[in-house]
Structure formats: structure tokens, C-alpha cells
């Protein structure tokens, strides 16, 4: 017990010696610390931005709806984007079949997407129009902030009604409640019946820059170039009861579609099924890679900071050779001298790391305010930063410290 206390006290002495030495060369200490500070600052910020990207992706996936699959009429490609020839067919009737035959399916919402131009009063906006059905709202967690969503009768009657996203509303209606307003979409007059709840933007993709109209209306009034037949859709949204049926649904949907399109055995499935679960997983991987790359780049500055530490510690050892000799003459063991210089390097690094961490927290907060991008720094990141700077000190201070400890007492004492 007292043994342990004495050991702790010995480290305390080293910290005191370190502070005296660092104060002696204050300017030099500050400049050296600056290197580590910048290094830790950039690593922490990189981690925070990476965390933010992950949070952002998670949010984006949540906006898709929890247990949902998207069916696309193109074969899955392991590498690269689909080629033009890839695109096959997918119809509303396929959707109905999926709803009837695939276990666990709650609802299916067909979609046709097309670019449109909106005009009202003197203003205009171009955006993406999604033609879908009333089920779309429930499958993809879409709510309305004001007014109402499409109803079954809107679809049946091919009503010229539109639900608009927040961004579109901001562009077209200033100081006017958009609900009930008239708007011309590709010159066709529509009535605004609803305003979508804002879903924010994720990684530069504005989720509020879209409008939703009945699929029937879109087909009849807003020309689409992609459709090959009267029944064709761009994609299908399929809502499932729970995660288990969702996971099984991937195969079920493919098998059903293979049967419906009589794809012979051995040929690849000309359909892609993407589940929210899969999307979450791959996006998670992508953001992790993104974060790793960021941190790797930032680590270079930390490495440079570490080399600065090593450099200054070597200078310090050389300047204080006589002191080292004296301490040895008074009974310091090699390990005492080594620890003294290790602690000095670690103190430099931890001070730098602490300041770097604080600056990173400030920068992250500013980033969050200005760029509306979350960059959270958790307690774990903070502790990691401090521990990491200490380790930098030990690693880069190690060589100078060992060099100091290997000096011969008499030669050190005789040096000038």
C-alpha cells in the first residue's frame, strides 16, 4: 500500500519536474504543443464528422420507413451503376401480385418519377414529381405538416391535386399558406392539398425538394418518357409487417417476379430488391470507410506533431545532459531518468491534446450551427483523444527518454 503510494508520488515528482522544465523553455514548449494540438484537433474533428455522417445516414434510412423494400426493374450489379440496356419492366399489376402473394406484405405503392416545372403567380420551381398512391405515405413514413395526403379517391379520379415538399413550398409560396393554392405543373393546373413534413437534408440530398401527385394523374397529364406500357412504373415500394418478413421478402419478391416474367432457370433475375435493412448496412459500411479515410488523413498531422515532440525531447535531453549526470550521481536509476523524460513528453502531449480537443468541440459546434451537419463528440471520443495524446507522448518521447537513460553518469556529468 505505502509502496504503491510512493510509486504514485514518484510519478508526481516527475510531473513536477516536467512542468519546471517546460516552463523554463516556455515558448519552445508552446510551439511543440501546438503541433500535437493541431493533430489532435484534426483527428477529433474527423471522427466527429464521420460520426455525423453516420448519424445522418441513420436518419436518412429512418426517413425511408422501417421495414420496407424497393423493387427496381433492373438486374443487381455488383460493380458500377446499371447500364441503359439493363432496365426491364415493372408494372402496377406486379405490385398487386406482390401484395397478394408475398407473406408479410402490408402495402405496395407503385411509383413513377419524372422531372417537372411548377409555376404559380410569378414564381417557378423545377423539382421531381413522384406519382404514387395513398399507401406511399404509410410505407415510407411520410406525414403531412399541413393539409392532407393523397386519398384512394384522388387516385381513382386522377384528381389534379398535389402534395408538396417544404423546399418547393418555400420557393413558390412566400407569406401564403400553400394549401388550397393553384399551381401549374408542366402547364397543367393543380390544387395544392398538402404540405409534407420536413425530412431535412442528408449529405447534400434535399429530401424536401419533391412533390407527390396521384400516379393516375401523372400518367395522364404529365408526360413520362420512361414508361413503355400504360401500366409501367419506375419502381415499387413494398411495406412489410416486420423485419423477419422483410428479410425473407427479398427472395419471395424475386421468385414471384421470375415466375411472372417467365425468367428461365440459370438466367439472372432482371430485378433488384433493396431492403431498408440492406441499405442501412451498406450505407453504414460506406460511412465507416469515409470516416476511416478522414481519420487517416488527419492522423498525418498528428504524426507530424509527434515528430515535433521527438525532436524537442532530443534537444531537451542534449541540453540537460549535465542534469541527467547529476541525477544519476545522486542515485537516479536508468528507469528514473527514462520516466522523467517520458512524463515530460506525455505532459506536453496531453496539454496539446486537451487544447486540441476543446478547439475541436468548438469547431464541431460551429459546424453544426453553420452547416446544419451533426458532428457529435462523445465522452468516449474525448477520453480517447486524451489517452491517445498521452500515447503519442510515450511513443515519440520514448526514443529520447531511452537515449537519456543510457548515458554514462560520468560522461553526462562532465558534459558542458
Amino acid at each position, binding site marked *: 500500500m505505502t509502496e504503491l503510494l*510512493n510509486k504514485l508520488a514518484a510519478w508526481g515528482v516527475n510531473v513536477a519536474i516536467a512542468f519546471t522544465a517546460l516552463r523554463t523553455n516556455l515558448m519552445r514548449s508552446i510551439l511543440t504543443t501546438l503541433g500535437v494540438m493541431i493533430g489532435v484537433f484534426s483527428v477529433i474533428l474527423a471522427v466527429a464528422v464521420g460520426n455525423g455522417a453516420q448519424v445522418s445516414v441513420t436518419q436518412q434510412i429512418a426517413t425511408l420507413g422501417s421495414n420496407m423494400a424497393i423493387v427496381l426493374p433492373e438486374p443487381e450489379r455488383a460493380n458500377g451503376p446499371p447500364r441503359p440496356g439493363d432496365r426491364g419492366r415493372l408494372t402496377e399489376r406486379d405490385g398487386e401480385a406482390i401484395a397478394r402473394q408475398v407473406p408479410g406484405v402490408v402495402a405496395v405503392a407503385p411509383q413513377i418519377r419524372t422531372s417537372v416545372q411548377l409555376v404559380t403567380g410569378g414564381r417557378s420551381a423545377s423539382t421531381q414529381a413522384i406519382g404514387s398512391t395513398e399507401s406511399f405515405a404509410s410505407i415510407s413514413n411520410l406525414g403531412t405538416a399541413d393539409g392532407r395526403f393523397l386519398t384512394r379517391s384522388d387516385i381513382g379520379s386522377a384528381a389534379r391535386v398535389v402534395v408538396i415538399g417544404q423546399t418547393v413550398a418555400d420557393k413558390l409560396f412566400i407569406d401564403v399558406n400553400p394549401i388550397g393554392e393553384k399551381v401549374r405543373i408542366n402547364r397543367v393546373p393543380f390544387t395544392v392539398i398538402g404540405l409534407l413534413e420536413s425530412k431535412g437534408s442528408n449529405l447534400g440530398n434535399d429530401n424536401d425538394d419533391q412533390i407527390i401527385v396521384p400516379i393516375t394523374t401523372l400518367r395522364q397529364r404529365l408526360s413520362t418518357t420512361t414508361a413503355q406500357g400504360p401500366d409501367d412504373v419506375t419502381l415499387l415500394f413494398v411495406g412489410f409487417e416486420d423485419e423477419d418478413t422483410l428479410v425473407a421478402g427479398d427472395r419471395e419478391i424475386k421468385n414471384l417476379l421470375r415466375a411472372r416474367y417467365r425468367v428461365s432457370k440459370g438466367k439472372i433475375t432482371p430485378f433488384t430488391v433493396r431492403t431498408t435493412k440492406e441499405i442501412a448496412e451498406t450505407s453504414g459500411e460506406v460511412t465507416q470507410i469515409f470516416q476511416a479515410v478522414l481519420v487517416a488523413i488527419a492522423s498525418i498531422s498528428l504524426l507530424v506533431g509527434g515528430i515535433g515532440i521527438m525532436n524537442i525531447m532530443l534537444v531537451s535531453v542534449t541540453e540537460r545532459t549535465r542534469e541527467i549526470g547529476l*541525477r544519476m*550521481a545522486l*542515485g537516479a536509476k536508468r528507469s*528514473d531518468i527514462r520516466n522523467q523524460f517520458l512524463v515530460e513528453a506525455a505532459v506536453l502531449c496531453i496539454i496539446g491534446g486537451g487544447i486540441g480537443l476543446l478547439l475541436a468541440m468548438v469547431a464541431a459546434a460551429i459546424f453544426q450551427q453553420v452547416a446544419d451537419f451533426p458532428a457529435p463528440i462523445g465522452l468516449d471520443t474525448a477520453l480517447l483523444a486524451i489517452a491517445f495524446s498521452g500515447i503519442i507522448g510515450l511513443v515519440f518521447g520514448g526514443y529520447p527518454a531511452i537515449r537519456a537513460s543510457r548515458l554514462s553518469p560520468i560522461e553526462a556529468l562532465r558534459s558542458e
Partner: protein
Amino acid sequence: MTAPLLETRDLIKNYVIGGEMVHAVNGVSLRIDRGEFVAIMGASGSGKSTFMNMIGCLDVPTSGVLKLDGIDTRTLNSDELAEIRNRKIGFVFQQFNLLARTSALDNVAVPLIYAGVGPAERRARAQARLEAMGLGNRLLNTPAKLSGGQQQRVAIARALVTNPLILLADEPTGALDTQTSLDIMGIFQKLNDEGITLVVVTHEPDIAEYAARRIVFRDGKVIEDEAVTSRRRAVSS
């Protein structure tokens, strides 16, 4: 009969500089017993410092026997030598070798750090040593605020703080004026009266007369080793 405090036989230290061999210490055999007060004299370059550094375990002999308190120090590793320097030997240097920007108290406490003594006891023991040196009112002064004689007294306090067996002083008065030198020798004499063994290097004959035994070096060998006949006593103030 107890072993002598210090015993050397055919102690040799050679240096090679510029391809030429220098016999700095060239076969020294002697013994020093507990309670002795030895002055080592000799011309510059005669090997006094080299000898002191070897018996102080700061330097290793080229060959020969070196026993301190019955321990053959040539068989010890660096940690064991550090411990001997810490527990059994006190050093006093010509240039005082105090840590700059460090108080007298903290300077004196340094050996106790390496002896594993806790902070409170370190303080108490360092303070007691400084008070015994008449520096009770200078505890928190840094070396820059102390005279040469005061600095050397701090250094002596530091050398004594671990209660060593022997005090080794290599030209301790070399950087001091005559009166201060005599004061320091007076302190040594008092310590010797209290039973501490001392080996002091000096090249001033009147300083050497404070010791009880005088050893003279020339060219790395002992050429004279005799009791001081006309021993001087310090006028204690």
C-alpha cells in the same frame, strides 16, 4: 574485524585518446577505514578525479579490485550502482551542481526521491539538513539567490541527506575564495568529528592540512600516503 570502508587493489583506468593510451589511474592500492578524513593531492592531470569517480561508482575501472563496504562494485549492474551512489555515497562537486530554478529545499531532497522516500519525509529531512548547515532561512531560495559558499553548503546538505557512509568531494573549494574555503573545510572537520568518513581532493596544501591523512598522486600512482602532522583546526564560529 570489520572490512575496510573502501579498498582498492591495482586499480587501473586507461583512456584512449587519438589512438594513444592514457594511464589516468595506474595501479592504485589503498584502504580507507570508517571515520577517516583523507585529502587527496597532486598536480593537475595526476588522476585524482578519475580515482574519485571510480570509488564513487560513477565510472568503471579498466581493471583491478574495488570494494566498497565489503561489496565488490565491479560485479554490480547499473541499477545496483545507482543504489550504492544513492545510499552509501555523497558527492560534493567543485561547481556545486545544483539544479537551477529549484529551491534549496528541493535540491537537497533530490536524492531522497530516488531513495523512494515520500514527499512529507523528504521535506522534513531536507529541511533538517539545511538547518544544520545554517541555511534555515534560505530554504526556498534558488541557487541564483545564494552565494558560492551557501551553494556549496546546500550541496553538502544534499550529499548528506541519505546518511551515506562516505562523502566524496572533488575540489570542493576550487570555486570559492579563501575564507569561504576555510569555512567549508571547517564544516567537513565537524562532520568528521561526528563520525562521517570524508575523501576530499584539493591541490592547496593548507586546505589539505584540515584532513587527518594525506595521499599524493602523480601520473596515476600514489607517491605519498601519510598522516597529517601539523593538523589545522577550524575556528568554529
